[in-house]
């Protein structure tokens, strides 16, 4: 059976509306009949990653690949990149701006949440070029 793929353009200009790709993915997974704990983990991983693309990287492309044994989320942006991944992964580290803070973002907990809710996570980043975050959630 071929993989099922969903792809979304994530608009980086609107902090308020961010999360559309994650909502859509969540409802697609429900229609496909995945268990609620799997859907919840995918939703948390993808939403945190989607928000990061919006507030730190001016948007990007989100892709969800549903395979036989796992669901892979690929978030690709052409933002500033992450100079120090170890630092970024620390709970509480954030470079979010005041506008993001006002909305409740910027606790520095997003990447740690993504790590915890996924079975595998990889960050591929080049400063000045962009970041690709890949997360895998096993379904079997």
């Amino acid at each position, binding site marked *: 059976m071929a993989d099922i793929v969903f792809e979304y353009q994530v608009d980086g200009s609107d902090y308020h509306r961010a999360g559309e790709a994650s909502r859509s993915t969540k409802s697609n997974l429900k229609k496909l009949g995945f268990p609620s704990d799997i859907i*919840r983990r995918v939703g948390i991983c993808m*939403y945190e990653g989607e928000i990061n693309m919006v507030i730190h990287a001016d948007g990007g492309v989100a892709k969800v690949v549903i395979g036989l044994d796992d669901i892979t989320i690929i978030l690709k942006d052409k933002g500033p990149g992450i100079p120090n991944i170890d630092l970024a992964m620390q709970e509480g580290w954030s470079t979010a701006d005041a506008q993001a803070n006002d*909305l*409740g*973002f*910027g*606790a520095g907990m*997003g990447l740690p949440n993504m790590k915890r809710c996924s079975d595998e996570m990889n960050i591929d980043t080049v400063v000045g070029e962009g970041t690709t975050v890949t997360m895998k959630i096993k379904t079997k």
Partner: protein
Amino acid sequence: MTVRELKEALGLTVFCAGNEDAEVTGGYCGDLLSWVMGRAEEGNVWLTIMSNQNVAAVAVMTDISCIVLTEGVKPDDALLSRCETEEINLLGTGLSTYQAAAELAKALAE
């Protein structure tokens, strides 16, 4: 306890009614969204003073049973319409977050 029972026990204001038969499993208090994303559990009541539409997205992602805006905070229009389209329980109280949490704990213990 269901969301409907909680609403009656605490005399909460209903801004938007979703599935009021949803089971309440406990609560989480927080205004920083990623803390809520990481810590709130399915079915929890989320007590917060944040009132913008990202609150609705977090509610959907975490599968909480309802949002309770504390301290007399009112939802902004975008949050309200988001909750209406997504059928999210959005409630409110004039109690402080601390008092509301204490009342919630009492109601859950009964």
